[in-house]
């Protein structure tokens, strides 16, 4: 069940970006937020605790967002977790790659609070349909 109490994992190597997304999520009603600074840390967190939603950057050291997405989709337990890619990689081939890897939606930086809310709402509507 995905709702305003859902637990969200924000993954970005820039602390400022994680802070921005956390504050925007709080503003649109999502207070249960945790953070990770790269894909591998995120994967550890996802495997050790239950998360309902992942918001991840693409460009990160160690494990980029696209690899995290693939790892999530290959994991029996995590494979259905909704993933929103939040990235500066605004190139057509990136979107195609992300969709092929199973991304639920894709938002280009910089974005507004309303744009982030729209993408989350679209994902939740589809997941809950």
């Amino acid at each position, binding site marked *: 069940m995905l709702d305003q109490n859902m637990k969200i994992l924000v993954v*970005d190597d*820039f*602390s*400022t*970006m994680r*802070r*921005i997304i956390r*504050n*925007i999520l709080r*503003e649109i009603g999502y207070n249960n937020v945790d953070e990770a600074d790269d894909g591998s840390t995120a994967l550890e967190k996802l495997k050790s605790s239950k998360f309902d939603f992942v918001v991840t950057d693409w*460009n990160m050291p160690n494990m980029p967002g696209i690899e995290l997405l693939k790892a999530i989709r290959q994991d029996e337990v995590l494979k259905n977790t909704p993933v929103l890619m939040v990235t*500066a*990689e*605004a*190139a*057509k*081939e*990136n*979107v*195609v790659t992300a*969709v092929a890897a199973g*991304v*639920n*939606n*894709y*938002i*280009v*930086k*910089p*974005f*507004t*609070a309303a*744009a982030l809310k729209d993408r989350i709402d679209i994902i939740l509507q589809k997941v809950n349909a």
Partner: protein
Amino acid sequence: MSGNLNEVLNKLREELSSLASFIDKTRQGIDNLETTVKIGSERFPEASNQLSAVTGELENAANKIMTILEGLMSEQERADAVLKRLSEWAARSGAAGLEEGQTLINDLQAVNIKTRSEMMDIFASMSFQDLTGQKLKKVIGSLAVVEKKLLEMALSFGLEGIDIKDAAGTGAGKNEMPINQDIVDRLLKELGA
């Protein structure tokens, strides 16, 4: 016969003189190139360090602004709560001029909502730090590639006093065509995501 020989010797002398002059100029050119390579090898790491420092400074500045914003938003939540209580108190008190008072409270609440929305826009705009940081990282990567090439040239010249270290770059950004959110949304729809 000897006249012809002299002519040939003179011609040969001229050619040799011209060749010597060309070799001398080329040598000077190589000397200058060595100096350029040496200076470049020394300056590129400095430029990379400066750019890394800029990224750090931007992050610090962005964090400071966000701390102030978070403080302001917290104060705004308090103001919003006070306005709600004031509105309830006014309704209960049944004081004269209640309607006018309620209008003023409503105006203040509208101002509060607008400024909060604008604060969120400022928050979202702080992602410039991340975006410029990523671009600077690509520039640093490009500098590392050029630095490596210079170091290889320096090695081939046998220049002394240069630290030959691993300067393998992360590489400049791919030659990609950026697209905006509308195109991304259309693509997602087409791809069924």
